[in-house]
């Protein structure tokens, strides 16, 4: 019985046909893959994409419909907003920013006050020099009589910078 089935011509023909079809399908797949790869390689995809009107595609997208399908409450429920906020504040160190800003403003204010007072001091000096008919300080006179002690003060200018002058009381 078994030998009869093995040698049955229709059965054998059917098996050969299935084998041939399977082999043909494999070959066809391989050929199609090779052809597709070759076609894609030769195609200029950038040019192809540039022909697509993206704006038109975007106009067809119904954002409201997509948004309506989103369940934002469910998404938010899954997020620990308190921990997230705490993490963000820790990351940007908000306290340090506030401290730096406040400290910077205070430093700027104090520095401005000092600079103004120094200018006012110089202005008072200039007025006093004019009233007392003293020589102009900008001229840097070499010998001058000290009004406090009566001693002669010799001015020795250093490298030309304004603050580098020295004085020696003789």
């Amino acid at each position: 019985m078994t030998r009869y089935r093995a040698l049955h011509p229709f059965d054998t023909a059917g098996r050969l046909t299935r084998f041939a079809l399977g082999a043909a399908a494999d070959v066809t797949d391989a050929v199609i893959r090779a052809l597709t790869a070759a076609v894609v390689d030769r195609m200029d995809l950038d040019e192809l994409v540039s022909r697509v009107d993206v704006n038109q595609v975007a106009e067809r997208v119904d954002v409201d419909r997509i948004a309506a399908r989103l369940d934002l409450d469910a998404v938010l429920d899954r997020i620990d907003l308190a921990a997230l906020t705490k993490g963000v504040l820790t990351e940007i160190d908000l306290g340090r920013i506030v401290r730096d800003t406040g400290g910077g403003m205070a430093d700027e204010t104090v520095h401005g006050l000092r600079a103004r007072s120094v200018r006012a001091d110089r202005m008072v000096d200039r007025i006093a020099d004019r009233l007392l008919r003293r020589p102009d300080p900008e001229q840097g006179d070499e010998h001058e009589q000290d009004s406090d002690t009566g001693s002669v003060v010799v001015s020795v200018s250093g490298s030309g910078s304004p603050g580098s002058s020295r004085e020696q009381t003789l």
Partner: protein
Amino acid sequence: MTGAERAGGPRGDAAGLVSRVLAGLVDAFVVAGLGLAVQFGAGGVRLLVTGPPFRLPDLSVRLSGLCGWTIALLYLTGSWVLTGSTVGGRLLGLRVVTGRSGGLPGVLRALARAALCLVFPLGLLWIPVSRRRASVQDLVLATTVRYDRM
């Protein structure tokens, strides 16, 4: 203080009249605050000892003046001896140094300077006249007030 030095960079130079008057005004407010704090402290002590109600001490004008003068004297002396700067001086960037060494004044010199400043504050008006920006107190006690934090 030569003319060239007056016109130069401020750090290390002797301070002028306006800076020192402003520093003095700030110090006056500080002393007033200290006096108020002392009064509240005395009222608190009285509250603890004798019980309620809380009342500030009712001092005579002369005694109040004496207390304020003492507070100012101790405040100025302590500030100059310890750091060379009072609160006002620190705000305006000023420091009191001795004329020769440039160091901080000693206790006696600072005490005498504080007393002179309190008795005769008009001595500051000598600063514009002086070529080295010295007040009468500076001339008497050989001290200088310099720009320190510019």
